[in-house]
Every structure is written in structure tokens, then in C-alpha cells.
């Protein structure tokens, strides 16, 4: 069976959707050359320069053009090379795109996707190219937020994002790009808003997103060695959030550890923790724990990155700590 890397999965999903709907068009910096992460490789050759457009270094113009085109009936997919750059066009994202449907009383619909490389991954990208920016968006109603955990997920969820009639921010963790999986046959599509039960367990629930799904799977393996059965949930999307699946698992295991790569100061981990603590309170036998990145801008030297990052070991320790105290 053919292999699929996450970076190829992006191009494959875009090709799949561009083939089935000619309203889907791409724009972004250096994308006709395949993109700096090679996530748009081959698309210009297949679909031409009208539908795959290079832009100036003008993120506000890129995102604004996507919004205007969507208002006029197209289905643009704009690449923001690194999620950190959303800060340079944040107004277009949160004040225009997130609000215009509502503030016009539903006169416009904005079927567009903003996508690009996201996250830390201890890859030496530092503080201005290593942020996970899904939390910035989660503070603002009106945006759907997707962050896949691997190649096949990447392809199916991106297809769903492109078909969605509302604006979707699609966060591709840059550490996943080289990951390989077997490519399933045929069209890929994974609906938004449905969490994935990665593995069943009975003693503790590990809630993860994107890069931390793999971390939690490794943690679950270690916990099994300690005789602890961990359930692992991949949220897949923050908006819409599949709270029901998380709450159901929390009620079953009574213990929840939420694992987020971003700084814990404020992020989706806190949002999910608050939700579980409020709605599953009477079934919890231990406090909801959060494992998250250090509350600093990211450093670069390997030893420093290791000090602020999230590891399976930290997840295991948190899970064991609770059981030792509460069983």
C-alpha cells in the first residue's frame, strides 16, 4: 500500500477537493513552488496558476482576499506559512472573518480555510516560529478550529474543512509533516466535531490534540506497564468541541489528564479542564490534571527546549500520582 506523509496528506486533500469542486482555490506565499513545507507540491501543475496563486508577503491581503472571495461564492484555502504569522493578520481573522456572518444578520457565508504549520515540537524554530496558535482562535467565537494528529487524519479532516461552509482554521503541526502512514484507498473525509477514541481504557482518561496524541499513546503504553489502563481521546477539533465524548470518558474513568503542548497559562487544556470539572464533578475521583508547555516564549537550544516541553514521562507521572493518592 502507498505511504502517506502528513505533508503529502495536505496536498492530497487539497487535490481531492479541488478536483471535486472548482470553486476551491489556493493562495499563499511561495505555494506554486510547492510551499516551504512542501504541502502544496504538484498542485499548480495539476490545477494551474489561476487556482494556485502566489502572493506577496502580505498576510492581511492574503486573508482578506480569501474572505472577499468566499463572500462572492468561491471556497478559498489560504496558506499562512507559520501560525505565528496570524498575528500579522489577526484583525482579518477575528474581527472580520469570525464576525461578518453574524453582524450582517446572516447575509454572508464564508466557506474558507486558513491553514499552515503550527506548534513547537522542539525543532529549534524558537519563539516567533514555534507557537501553537489554536488557543488565540478559541478565544473568539465564529471560527472552527481543527488540529489533526497524523497523516490520514490530516487528509480526512482537511477535506472536511474545505467542504465546511463556515470559516475553518486548520493547524498542521510541523513535527507531524514527515510522519508516515499507509494511505487508505479512495476519498478521505472525517467529519468535524467528532473526537476520536484512540484507545479504550478504564483507569484514567488522557485528552490530547495534534502532537500530544502521540505523546499520550506512548504514555498509555508506559501506564499499561504500571498496570494502569488509560483511555486516550484525540479531540481533533476544538470548535466544534465533542464535549460529550470527553465527559463520557471522564465519568467512566473518574480521572482526567489533559495534555497540551502550549503554555498552560491559558489554553484549550484549561477550557476542557474547566468543562470536565464543572460537568463531571460528581464522577471525578481525582482532580483534573493538566500537563502543558512552560509559560515562557520557546527557547532554541535543545537542552532548553527539553526543559519546557511536554513529555510522555510527565503524563505518566501525573496519572500515577493521582491513582496512588486516590485508590
Amino acid at each position, binding site marked *: 500500500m502507498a505511504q502517506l506523509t502528513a505533508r503529502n496528506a495536505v496536498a492530497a486533500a487539497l487535490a481531492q477537493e479541488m478536483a471535486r469542486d472548482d470553486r476551491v*482555490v489556493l493562495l499563499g506565499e511561495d505555494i506554486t513552488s510547492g510551499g516551504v513545507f512542501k504541502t502544496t507540491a504538484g498542485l499548480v501543475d495539476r490545477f494551474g496558476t*489561476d*487556482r494556485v*496563486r502566489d*502572493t*506577496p508577503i*502580505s*498576510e*492581511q*491581503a*492574503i*486573508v*482578506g*482576499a*480569501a*474572505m*472577499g*472571495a*468566499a*463572500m*462572492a*461564492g*468561491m471556497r*478559498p484555502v489560504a496558506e499562512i506559512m507559520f501560525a505565528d504569522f496570524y498575528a500579522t493578520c489577526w*484583525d*482579518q481573522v477575528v*474581527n*472580520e472573518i469570525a464576525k*461578518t*456572518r*453574524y*453582524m*450582517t*444578520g*446572516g*447575509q*454572508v*457565508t464564508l*466557506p474558507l480555510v486558513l491553514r499552515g504549520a503550527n506548534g513547537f515540537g522542539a525543532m529549534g524554530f524558537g519563539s516567533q516560529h514555534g507557537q501553537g496558535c489554536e488557543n488565540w482562535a478559541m478565544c473568539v*467565537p*465564529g471560527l472552527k478550529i481543527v488540529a489533526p494528529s497524523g497523516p490520514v487524519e490530516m487528509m480526512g479532516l482537511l477535506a472536511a474543512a474545505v467542504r465546511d*461552509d*463556515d470559516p475553518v482554521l486548520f493547524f498542521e503541526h510541523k513535527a507531524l509533516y514527515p510522519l508516515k502512514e499507509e494511505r487508505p484507498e479512495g476519498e478521505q473525509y472525517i467529519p468535524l*466535531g467528532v473526537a476520536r477514541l484512540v484507545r479504550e481504557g478504564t483507569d484514567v482518561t488522557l485528552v490530547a490534540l495534534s502532537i500530544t496524541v502521540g505523546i499520550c499513546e506512548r504514555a498509555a503504553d508506559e501506564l499499561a506497564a504500571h498496570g494502569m489502563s488509560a483511555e486516550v481521546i484525540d479531540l481533533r477539533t476544538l*470548535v*466544534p*468541541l*465533542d*464535549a*460529550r465524548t470527553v465527559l463520557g470518558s471522564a465519568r467512566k474513568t473518574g480521572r482526567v489528564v489533559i495534555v497540551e503542548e502550549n503554555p498552560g497559562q491559558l489554553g484549550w487544556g484549561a477550557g476542557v479542564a474547566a*468543562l470536565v470539572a464543572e460537568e463531571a464533578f460528581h464522577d471525578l475521583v481525582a482532580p483534573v490534571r493538566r500537563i502543558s508547555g512552560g509559560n515562557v516564549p520557546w527557547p532554541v537550544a535543545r537542552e532548553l527546549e527539553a526543559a519546557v516541553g511536554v513529555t510522555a514521562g510527565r503524563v505518566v507521572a501525573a496519572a500515577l500520582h493521582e491513582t496512588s493518592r486516590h485508590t
Partner: protein
Amino acid sequence: MGSDPAGTGLATADDTGIGLYRDMAFVRRFLEVVDSAYRDGEVHGPAHLGLGQEAIAVGAASVLRPGDASIGTYRGHAHALARGASPEAVLRELLGRAGGICGGKGGSMHITSVEHGYYGSYAIVGAHLPIACGLAWAATLQHSDRVTVCFFGDGTVNIGAFHEALNLAAVWRLPVVFVCENNQYMEYTPISAMIPVRRPAADRASAYGLEPLTVDGNDVNAVREVVGSAVETARGGGGPALIEADTYRLRGHSAADPAAYRPAEEVRAWGAKDPLLRQRSVLAAEGVPADELDAVDAAVRSSVDDLLDRARAAPAPDPQDAWTDMWSDGDSQWRN
């Protein structure tokens, strides 16, 4: 030129001098009514009026085709009306009544009428210029001859979004016409104090490989001519244009602003250039008797006053409307 099915709005089918006068008079009266309603506490939130700038909205709209797109700022009532938006629906929105054109979710700063090609009023300075590029880009992708006209103020030329949008429009040769309504002021600060050139827009056109186009924004016929030719150039594939239209707001930045910062002499001088007076003298020269125009004023006045009564009589919006128009599938939840 816009038209209003209900027949209460800008219904000029012909673009005769009198038709243009009538539309400007209608907008003028509409804005004056909003101004006094604001002072009476009937408008919740700020209201930015285009009093004195009617010739730009009416003149530009008069050269557009129904399928064309326009987009503007919080000072957008005139532009929505000029494209044919229902004045009663706009007024209901301003007064916070049921049946508002944005369902009570936009208010004065976000008047929109996509049905009439007016893609909205945006309240972040400069934000809608990139969006205008997208509307224009879509036209090229759809092989449509739709042209997009984007209105903004003099103070907007100093924000990054202006620069990025003009550059993209020029590089992609998009069918978009940018019209800078130079009313001489930002909020309380004269634009001349905040630019290192004399003309905020025109003196920057060359940075985008564009011609420095200017027009007397208080002369509706001049506006028709200059905007009209730029629109047809864009329609023909000739690329974008940047037009600076000189004008003046007769009142404050918003209805709450007494505008005491403006020299009385300046206000007087511009008062004499009022676009309605200008068109009256043009028509007088064409032999149109003054009483004919007085009759137009009277008709406009009574129709706007009727609108006000009807809007005031409308019921309050249903609080449940706060939960509609969120997601395209009708849902308003972010989680299950």
C-alpha cells in the same frame, strides 16, 4: 443606480440631474433624521454620518450595474442606500427594531445589503480593503465582469491593510476601484498632520504603479465621470484604480462629536460647497426652476419622515435572535 422594491428608497431609474439631486436629498434627509434620533437617544451605540459626502455615494453608485459590488466603512449608510438597500430596514437597524437590515446584530457601523451588492460596512480602519480585493479576485475566477468599488477615508491611507490591499490589487490587476473619501479629518485630527505628502491617496498611487486620480467629491457629476471611467477600465480588464475624492463632513466624526476642533472659517467655506447646493446650481443653469427642486425636497422629506414613523412603530426584536446567524447550518453551539 440602486432601486428599492418597496418604492420608499432611492428609486431613480434614470440618472438625470434631477434624479441624482433627489437621491442626494434623500440621503441627506435620511442622515439628518438619524442624527436627531441619535440626539434623542433612539440610537443605541455610535452613529457615523456621511452628511456632506452624499455626492460620492450617489455619484459612484449611479455608474454601477446591479451585479457590481461595493463595500465601505462604519460611515456607510449613504453607500447602502445608494445601492438600493431598503431605507426602512436600515432605519430599523439603526433604531434597534425588529426587521433591521442586519437583524439587530450590526447596528449603525455594519449596515449591509448583499442583495443590492453592498457587501458591508466595516468598523476597523482599513480592514475592508483586502476584502474588496477578494471580491474582485472572485470576479476574475468566475469570469464575471463584476467590478468592486471600495470606499474609505483619508485617515485610512496610513494603515498597513491599505498598503497590502493596493499592492495586491495592482500585482494581480484586479477589477477593483478604491475611492478615498478625503473629508480632511481622521476623528479629531486633520489628515494633513499625519501624512508626509499633500494628498493622502493620490500622492501614493505611484507606489502601486497607478495614476494619481483626483475628483471634486462634492460634484456628483464629476464623481460619475471619474469613477465611471475607472469602473469601465477595470471592467475591461484594465486593472485597479485609486481615486481621491475631496469632500468634507458637515458634522462631527460621529453624532456624539460637536467637532469643536474645526476652524469656523473652514466649516463655512466648505458649507458653501455643499453637494446639494452644487447640484442645484448646475440644474438652475440647465433651466430647472427652483420650485421644482423645492418640491423634490418636500417629497423626500415627507417620505423619510414616513419611514421614521414606520420604523419607530416596529416592534422590538426577539431576544432569541441573538442566537441565530452564527453557523451556516443554523446552529449556534460551539460544543455538544
